[in-house]
Every structure is written in structure tokens, then in C-alpha cells.
């Protein structure tokens, strides 16, 4: 197996900011009286992980899961599941410079504006 670089010690400010804001599902669900055990985006996240696994070139499955374990136990220990799974995936892609942190920050602003324009 090809040795992959350890990217779990890299800090990603965007993701740390999201952790601080703490809009995790169990808190939001309680606030709005919703009983779904997982957020509505969970199946889409599963789809994203499977789609990445299909090609596996940029982030092999076992590497992704190993980094999720490490990040969930350390940097993102405050986050519940599945937020921890999502943030760990983003961390792995940003730390490898596959996804640019600034581009993701900008895209998040665009997505939020798009979603809020419909409410």
C-alpha cells in the first residue's frame, strides 16, 4: 500500500470556525422539535463518499476512514456524528490541496445566499 502523508495535524481555519459556531444537528433538531436522528444531508454525504470511493485516486477509502478516526478523536472531538464525518472529509481534501480552502469559503457563501434567497 502506498504510504500517504499525515494531514491530521494541519489546521483548517474555515472548519475550526464551523466547529465554534456549533450548528450541529442534535442542537438544531432540539430547537425545532425535529425527531430525525440524522440531518437531511447525511444521505448526500454518504453518496459523496461512495462517489469518491468509486475512483479512489485522490483519497483511498481506508485513508479517508483512518483520517476520520484520527480527526474525530483529536481536532474535531467536539463534533458529533455525522458532522464529524463531513468535516473530516473536508479536512482531508483541503489538507491535500485537492479542494482550496478559500474556494470552499467562497462557495459556501454563494450556497448560503442561494438557499436563503428561497426562504
Amino acid at each position: 500500500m502506498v504510504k500517504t502523508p499525515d494531514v491530521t495535524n494541519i489546521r483548517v481555519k474555515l472548519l475550526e470556525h464551523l466547529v465554534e459556531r456549533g450548528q450541529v444537528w442534535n442542537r438544531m433538531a432540539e430547537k425545532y422539535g425535529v425527531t430525525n436522528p440524522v440531518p437531511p444531508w447525511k444521505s448526500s454525504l454518504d453518496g459523496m463518499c461512495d462517489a469518491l470511493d468509486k475512483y479512489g485516486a485522490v483519497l483511498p477509502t481506508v485513508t479517508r476512514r483512518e483520517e476520520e478516526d484520527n480527526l474525530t478523536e483529536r481536532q474535531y472531538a467536539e463534533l458529533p456524528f455525522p458532522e464529524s464525518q463531513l468535516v473530516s472529509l473536508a479536512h482531508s481534501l483541503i489538507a491535500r490541496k485537492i479542494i482550496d480552502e478559500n474556494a470552499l469559503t467562497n462557495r459556501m457563501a454563494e450556497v448560503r445566499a442561494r438557499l436563503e434567497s428561497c426562504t
Partner: protein
Amino acid sequence: MVEEITDFEVLEIALRELAIEKGLFTAEDHRQYTEFAEAMGPTPASRLVAKAWIDPAFKKRALEDPIAASLEVGINWLNPTGFGTPSDFTALHILEDTPTLHHVVTCTLCSCYPRPILGNSPEWYRTPNYRRRIVRTPRQVLAEFGLFLSPEIEVRVEDSNSKHRFLVLPMRPDGTEGWSEEQLAAIVTRDCMIGVALPKPGVTTNAVLPVHHASEPITNNSTEK
């Protein structure tokens, strides 16, 4: 419904859009696997166990060729691509419990799980805490789930990997004589098929889920007639 757009919802969409634009996968791939994830659940596995309890010929087929037996409860392991999902190899083993042998399943490396027939793994199954400890102190971990096994019952922990997935076939409990397949399937919970619980008449869920009460519940006081 949560009427607030959360950071994590936004992150999931933004990350996915950039990944598609980067060519890491296609929107079609994502759509296909998301639909598959939405459709998965433990019901087919519960039916398989119930069917095995009441039909000895099916049980024999299930133990000999679990992938073929899965088809009889509506699960084709070759879905959704024609050769399975990228991470779920078409290799299922059914582990039959006996009065002196109890099986429990884990994946020490990551979180391999028979997703096509049992749905997504629960959160605790993914945690290093469970994965590390179940292989070292299985009786202690099972006790934490409320499952206390007598010393004369051997506990066998099966470690899943990319080419071997496992499903526990628990023993049919007393008090279910004459039950229909549907009645039996209702007590075969996900946890029974991982091996951290035993089926019991009257128990149809893994655990009682907490109920979130609305801080500002909707009332009908303002409804006009």
C-alpha cells in the same frame, strides 16, 4: 423541519459542488449513490433471519450462499452499479449462533459493514472505541450494550474487511412459537444482526431514541376558521 440553513448543510453542498467541478466524481455518480443510501435499511436482513427461522431449506441456502439468498428478500448485492458499491464487496457470510456460540461483528480497520442488506452502520460501530475494545474485551463491551452471556457460551468476534462482510443469524427466542415471518422479522433488530443484542418478544427497536421537544411548539390557537 429545521427552518434555518445550517453551516453543515451549506458545507456539504459546497464541498460536493467543488468536487464535481474538479472532476473527482460526476453529479450522476453522486445522484446514484445517494439514492442507494436513501433506500438502504435493515429490513431485508430482518426478513432473511425470520425466513431462515421458519424455513429450514432457506436457512441452508442462506448459510451456503448468502448473496443468492439475499435475492430472495429483495437485495441484489450487484446494485447500484452492476458490480456493487465501490466499498461493499459482494462477499457476505452469515454467522449462525448456537446455544454454545455467540457471534459479534466488527471492523477493526475502518467500518466495513454489510450495507446493502443491513443499511448504514450505526455511529457506535464506526467508533475506534467499539472497534478496539470488542476484540479485546468482548464480554465487557457486550455487557455495556446490556447483553450478558453466561461463561459457557463462547463469544466469537468476526473482523470484517474489504472482502468479507458478516451478518449474525441469532437463535430464535422462546415464546415465538407459531409466529408469522412478519412477526418474527419485527424482533430481529439491527443490533441482533451485529451481535450486540439478542432478539426478544416485544422488543422491536435497538434502543429507545430520545425525543426532542420543541422549544417553541406550533399551536393551533391562531388558526382561522
